């Protein structure tokens, strides 16, 4: 199995608080992998460790076998990792298509000198990038909105734009932080099939944080559950669903028994 991303005993402390406690994750290439857990479990912190926003105090993060912890985030982007954010962080004062163009930044080579002199490299690259951005706009369903300022787009469009920007990098690994937050069921379904499409059509490995269990159980192939920074379970959706520790993490102590009782009643009804 080709493991594209691995986190080995990653720990992150904030002063006295242990946000992530020796987490181990191995994501095979082309998989849709989810990290779930109750609020405050350390999911986004782990994400931040993987994407370079934080440097873990302990442990390693390996991308395609190479350690990346401690690297600057722009380097990590150049390696082929892109991400989206829990609370959307677009470049509000730029148009949608410009946001996507920035996403392509690491793949473009022209410098300021090229720009000033309008060299051939500059013109060719820009043209290609713009065309590519148009394609991405279409791909995420935002065709025609390319020249709108990002801050003026409706919420759902902004989420999709953020993904388009992340895709601009032609990433091998895409980290999605709660991609369906704030969406209604229909939008959630669309996003879910969209994410699956990303993997199927573009061959991108997806690592996602999600709260919406339908999404998680629907498309994830493997799930890691965090609680208070520690990994408490890992496995396929079925195994996770019936794992009593996981249920207790969400519902509290006695939750497993409660859930079991509920299931009995459902089966008997």
């Amino acid at each position, binding site marked *: 199995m080709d493991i594209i991303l691995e986190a080995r005993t990653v720990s992150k402390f904030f002063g006295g608080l242990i946000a992530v406690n020796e987490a181990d994750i191995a994501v095979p290439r082309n998989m849709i992998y989810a990290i779930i857990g109750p609020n405050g479990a350390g999911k986004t912190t782990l994400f931040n460790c993987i994407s370079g926003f934080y440097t873990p105090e302990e442990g390693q993060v390996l991308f395609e076998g190479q350690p990346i912890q*401690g690297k600057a985030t722009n380097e990590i982007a150049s390696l082929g990792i892109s991400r989206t954010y829990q609370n959307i962080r677009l470049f509000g004062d730029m148009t949608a298509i410009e946001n996507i163009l920035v996403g392509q930044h690491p793949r473009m080579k022209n410098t300021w000198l090229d720009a000033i002199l309008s060299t051939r490299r500059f013109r060719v690259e820009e043209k290609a990038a713009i065309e590519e951005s148009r394609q991405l706009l279409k791909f995420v369903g935002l065709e025609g909105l390319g020249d709108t300022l990002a801050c003026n787009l409706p919420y759902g469009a902004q989420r999709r734009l953020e993904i388009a920007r992340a895709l601009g990098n032609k990433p091998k690994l895409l980290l999605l932080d709660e991609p369906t937050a704030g969406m209604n069921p229909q939008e959630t379904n669309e996003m879910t099939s969209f994410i699956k499409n990303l993997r199927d059509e573009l061959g991108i490995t997806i690592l996602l944080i999600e709260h919406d269990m339908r999404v998680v159980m629907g498309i994830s192939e493997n799930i890691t559950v965090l609680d208070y920074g520690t990994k408490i379970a890992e496995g396929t959706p079925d195994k996770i669903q019936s794992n009593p520790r996981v249920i207790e993490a969400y519902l509290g102590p006695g939750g497993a028994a409660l859930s079991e009782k509920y299931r009995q009643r459902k089966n008997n009804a």
Partner: protein
Amino acid sequence: MSENSSPQSSKIRISPGQIARLSAGIAVIAWMAWRLYTVLFVEAIYGIDTWTRFAISGLILGGMYALIAIGYTLVYGIMFMINFAHGEVMMIGAFGGYFVFEALRNIPMPTPEDPKLSFLNAQPLLSVLLAFLVGMTIAAIAGYYLERIAYRPLRQAPRLILLITAIGASIFLQNAAMLMFGPQRQTVYNPVLLTRGTGWEIPMGKSVVMLTYTGTFSFVLSILLLIILYLVVQQTRLGRSMRAVAHDKDTAALMGVDVNDTVSKTFIISGLLAGAAGVMWGIHNGLVNHFTGFLPGIKAFTAAVLGGIGNIPGAMLGGLFLGVVEAMGPAALGIDFQLKDVIAFSILVLVLIFRPQGILGEALSEEKL
């Protein structure tokens, strides 16, 4: 966010920024050490009396800086902005004190012994008290309206915008003062009791060191006000509100703290302290004009940063420290006295480059991602 040193496995990454900083730091320290050595041992021109004189004037200056610095630190604590116009608030206080003295100086209270006696000299204590009351009040009012008019509408705006507004307010106030009162520096006529340059004479070394009345008065008052402020912040409800808002504005609001009110009161308190410093400045240094607040403002800000922005004891200590360094610095480093402002600026630059959280550390929750 950039410089991350990581644990066991990966190699040490040094950014060009770090190299630049390191070399700059080493260069500065080396230069300072060389100068200090030269002045203290090789040339040794200054005796203990001179150093004491420097130290005394440094402490007096430092007290005033501390008062102004608290204003910066308090405002930064609750609004995350540098109140660029704070120096002008001090200037307004200084003018307040000046005008009171002028008015009282022109009220005749003749006695048989002295037919030309004025209220100012007949009732010096009352006059000084009045000057401080008026100066501090006017400065507080100025601070209050500054916040209401220029800063409150921009509460949610990005920091850059607030900074520019503050600069604009500063320019406006400076020039308003200049247009109204003229660019000339006005002489402050103290009551005779508090004549500048008079004081207790203390023999030291080969000569005599003077502890001026104005200086002692200023210093003692500064310390008093600083203590009162510290108690207010630590013990009173208002102080708790201020600390709460500084820590987390939204949660404080949810807990029932009236954020607008707390912010206003913070500006009022900053204004009071800066006003006091302004009146002291007039009494001790004797000259006020529209520009009086500019340099002390920047230096007090340096002091606040030095102590750790948002950290109140830090601002106090930073102020005193900066005052002393500014007074003793040019002599200690053997450079021109003209360059004493450069010292303050350089300290600012150095602190911000090498230890932006200040000596005592910031007492703020740093914004994370």
